[in-house]
């Protein structure tokens, strides 16, 4: 892999997006590329939107992507995939965990959460490819609901021409030893799901 790859990880505070993007950046480095990542922490942690950019390439300047250049939009929450779709490069790929987290604007009744089918249709209209994963169910199946982000990384890894071992190694380094096996399984389940779609 020699070309530039741009990733945008999005979701809601508390979903483990920063760890997932850390891992993705580390994988880039382990593949012998330059890698950078960037995010904004702070207010957003309190249930707000979280975005994290990861870029791989022979050389990388800006740690953030430019709108319209994201090769992989990795959304940990359905609504967030829609919110950020405009960052995708035409023909780019969306990996979306279909979990829904109700925003306060919806729970207080000022807005409605659009139906899943409509969101997915809008994504498919724009992306070259949309891969959906039920992260929560697969993580549970793997043995811990805390491994949702590992499932998503598994799915992402299947779409890139990269060896699974590099990802696994980077993931295992970041999880507590007692969850290592569950994370290996979560990664495998995510990878399988993406291969099938």
């Amino acid at each position, binding site marked *: 892999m020699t070309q530039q790859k741009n990733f945008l990880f999005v979701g*809601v505070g508390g979903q483990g997006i920063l760890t997932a993007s*850390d891992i993705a*950046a*580390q994988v880039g*480095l382990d593949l012998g590329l*330059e*890698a*950078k*990542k*960037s*995010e*904004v*922490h*702070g*207010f*957003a*942690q*309190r*249930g*707000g*939107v979280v975005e994290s950019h990861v870029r791989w390439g022979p050389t*990388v*300047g*800006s*740690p*953030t*992507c*430019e*709108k*319209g*250049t994201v090769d992989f939009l990795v959304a940990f929450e359905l*609504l967030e995939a*829609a*919110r950020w*779709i*405009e960052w*995708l*490069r*035409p023909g780019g790929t969306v990996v979306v965990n279909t979990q829904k987290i*109700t*925003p*306060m*604007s*919806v*729970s*207080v*009744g*000022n*807005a*409605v*959460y*659009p139906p899943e089918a*409509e*969101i997915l*249709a*809008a994504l498919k*209209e*724009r*992306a070259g490819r949309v891969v959906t994963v039920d992260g929560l169910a697969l993580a549970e199946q793997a043995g811990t609901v805390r491994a949702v982000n590992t499932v998503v990384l598994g799915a992402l890894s299947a779409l890139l021409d990269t060896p699974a071992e590099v990802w696994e190694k980077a993931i295992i380094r970041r999880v507590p030893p007692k969850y290592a096996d569950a994370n290996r399984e979560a990664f495998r389940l995510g990878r399988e799901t993406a291969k099938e779609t």
Partner: protein
Amino acid sequence: MKRLLSGNEAIALGAWEAGVQYASAYPGTPSTEVLESLAQYAGVKAEWAANEKVALDAAAGAAFGGARALAAMKHVGVNVAADSLMSLSYTGVNGGLVLVSADDPGAFSSQNEQDNRNYARFGKFPCLDPADSEEARQFTRLAFDISEMFQCPVMVRSTTRLSHSKSPVEVEMPEGPRERKPLPPFERHSDKYVIIPAIARRRHPEIEQRLLEIAEWAETAPVNRIEWGDRSLGIITCGMAYQYVREVFKGFSILKLGMTHPLPKRMIHDFAGQVEKLVIVEELDPIIEEQVRAWGIEVVAGKEFFPLYGELTLARVREGALKAGLPVAPMPDQVEPLSEVTIPARPPALCPGCPHRAFFYNLRRHRKKVVVSGDIGCYSMGVLPPFETMDMLISMGASIGMAHGLKQAGAQEKVVATIGDSTFFHAGLSPLANAVYNKSNIVVAVLDNRITAMTGGQQHPGTGITLQGEEGKQIDIGPVARAMGVEHIWEVDAWDVKAVDDALKAAFAVEEGPSVVVVKGACVFTPYYQRRPTVAVDLDTCTACGNCFRVGCPAILKSDQTHPKTGKPKATIDPLLCTGCTVCLQVCPVDAIYETGGEEA
């Protein structure tokens, strides 16, 4: 070995490599991780200070004593420390003194977008602007050398983007842990460190001379460098803007300034002379541009194309370049904007179980007769729906002073200042003394959640735990207020809705002097927070009155069931989010919410 480090981690590494002995900071996004990271290195005394001025003063004292010292803060923190900073430039130092200022272009988590390179110009000391984590490490090391070489404080200026981006850094691990050594006997130089008027007058011309010498040094120092390319266009840039420039203006010549004050005049003249057109791209203020134009050098594109406000990005730099008619690649193609679905906003909210919730729920009910002077912390969210009870907020600690002034000027409403515990120790003590002294009839509500929550959970004097994990004295806010002469003080449980309201009402009834209500309850992210069984809604009892929605808890959702008469939605509670704080249960008028008694959330 190459490791991915954030800008803040790299600054800490650089400081450690430079042999820093003492470091102090007050937390503030995006600077916080500098000290959190430094605190983990052996041989460094690293502390949270009560505020930024204390942090800088402490670092100054250490530097006077010969230690290499560092103070870190967010951009607005430098305002708090500025009184000392301006005169430290006059006193000079003994051991190297480095001030890390983390600016926030884009105001992601701040009240303004001030460009702290202005402080370097204002205070006449050098400013280094790294462009990635490797430079953050190297420049911080260099900053200590420059500080000692030229006897001045040195600013390392980061931005949110640098502080919170990770890029590869060459990390050589130390041979062994470093020991903390005592300082040598104090060398007295009262003619230097005691900056009385006579000395200040003598020092000022020396400071001006020093600046010229630093500028001369900067002409050849490797912090500033030229990357020659196509000379039909030359771009001067610094900091993170360099990263956007090298992508957008690929192939053209670049003068990358690592030191943005003072500027290398000859180097800039030479560069400008060797390129056909000169462009300047810098984030926020035209610090470089104004100087370059003042030297009579022609600039074809500067601030008129690369705006004075907001964070620069690849897109904004490209857009500016295209508008200026410069030969760069066009904006990338984009997918069709989303029009068929409307995306609800996801505003931040107080967490489920937050100790600030019952207070704002109550305050909201007194809304008509009170003016609320707010402060900075998680409780600033009191300004958002469903509370919408905050009428002013400017800077840390200002709540009490503003409330005082408003009341003293003759406000007819009750005036309430709301302030967090960390903010109280940061800048709330003096204005409280002032209110007692001048006898203003205000209510000061201290929201004591036992942590500095907004910035991610740092300890402070009220918690008694230090940055490096030692336990000590916890300073209790109620007794502090009493010792200052406040006569009416209530301390209440943050989750007892009625007790909070009773205290507020009693405080409103006080007719003379200030009163203090300390609302006590730990933030859900602290180890002291106690989760309880979750609560649930009995849908048969729920009348869809909507009262529980007014506590603004993310765990309370609209259910699919509606009330047959009003058509309004009944409530339901997400058991994964609920922490069982019972605030919603207490405000339900028909007792439809009950404790499940089941497993812990």
